[in-house]
């Protein structure tokens, strides 16, 4: 049970009110339809207030930065890759997502955050690409190069929902800049997401209201953390529609866009 201004309210009302607080304080900050991970931009994240069953909504930088990255220059190299002294190319380390099945393994950079700094990422919908291999007119076999179709995916009848996340405080030791960075936890794709994100068959760990609460406030052992992180939100409660291929620069990125040549998704 929750209290807001001393009144007993339901969990959903409490979350609604807390969300509105942020909307009021920083209306422009939540008024974003599109967050693209590779921009390493700021996102709205629910973070537990220590010692209380309460949270604050803060801006965090998407793209987990471990403590051993000492400054922005190193962060840039870490995220984008770089040419080493011997001329070899060092591949970037992508930390937008943390795999639920692996994040608690010993020596994983996410382990401490998963145990001690779990958060919820507010989402009004996310974007994923479906890969379709056209059939060759010459030999009737699928071509090797896929055509990619973007989808906007959300939860039915919900303006926003929660993704499991983990966060990490980070400081540039040279400039003193302090930011909090986060990674979105991913799980195996459900029947809907298997068809859309068919190249990797993964999806963000979308949590129900109760699981979100437990993820943020629960005193959880490793088994339970993994169990929640691996939760597959029911496909039948989700919705997806194709959107324009130039959605990144569109005024309304989530606006539906139909592709005549695209086979329909199988109903789940």
């Amino acid at each position: 049970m929750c209290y807001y201004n001393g009144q007993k309210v339901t969990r959903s009302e409490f979350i609604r009110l807390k969300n509105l607080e942020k909307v009021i304080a920083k209306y422009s900050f939540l008024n974003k339809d599109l967050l693209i991970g590779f921009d390493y931009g700021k996102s709205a994240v629910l973070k537990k207030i220590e010692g209380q069953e309460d949270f604050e909504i803060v801006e965090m930088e998407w793209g987990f930065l471990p403590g051993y990255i000492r400054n922005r220059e190193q962060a840039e190299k870490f995220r984008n890759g770089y040419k080493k002294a011997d001329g070899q190319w060092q591949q970037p380390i992508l930390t937008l997502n943390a795999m639920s099945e692996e994040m608690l393994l010993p020596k994983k950079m996410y382990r401490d955050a998963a145990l001690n700094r779990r958060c919820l990422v507010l989402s009004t919908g996310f974007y994923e690409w479906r890969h379709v291999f056209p059939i060759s007119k010459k030999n009737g076999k699928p071509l090797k190069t896929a055509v990619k179709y973007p989808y906007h995916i959300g939860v039915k009848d919900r303006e926003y929902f929660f993704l499991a996340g983990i966060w990490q405080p980070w400081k540039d030791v040279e400039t003193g800049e302090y930011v909090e960075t986060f990674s979105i936890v991913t799980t195996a794709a459900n029947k809907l997401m298997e068809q859309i994100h068919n190249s990797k068959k993964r999806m963000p760990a979308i949590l129900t209201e109760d699981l979100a609460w437990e993820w943020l406030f629960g005193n959880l052992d490793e088994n339970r953390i993994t169990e929640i992180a691996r939760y597959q939100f029911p496909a039948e409660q989700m919705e997806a529609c194709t959107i324009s291929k130039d959605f990144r620069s569109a005024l309304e990125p989530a606006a539906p866009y139909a592709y005549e040549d695209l086979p329909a998704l199988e109903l789940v």
Partner: protein
Amino acid sequence: MEIELFQITYKDASLDVERFDISGQTFFRISFPDKVPPLTILRALNFEGAKFWTSMPEGRYQLAEEIGILVEQYYRSIK
């Protein structure tokens, strides 16, 4: 965003009230003549499903209740 302006009387003082809607929710922002910080109030639902006036952010519940009643009276008076 459309903003409606009106006034209410609270403890013999005339207070300016702005009404605005964000994210499908109606808010009232009340300005005070002295150094009292502006107050934002709205209607919320308690556990039993009844509506109550609350401040946003949290902390000025009592004042929200008192002012909220005056806002209701204002709307009744102009019907």
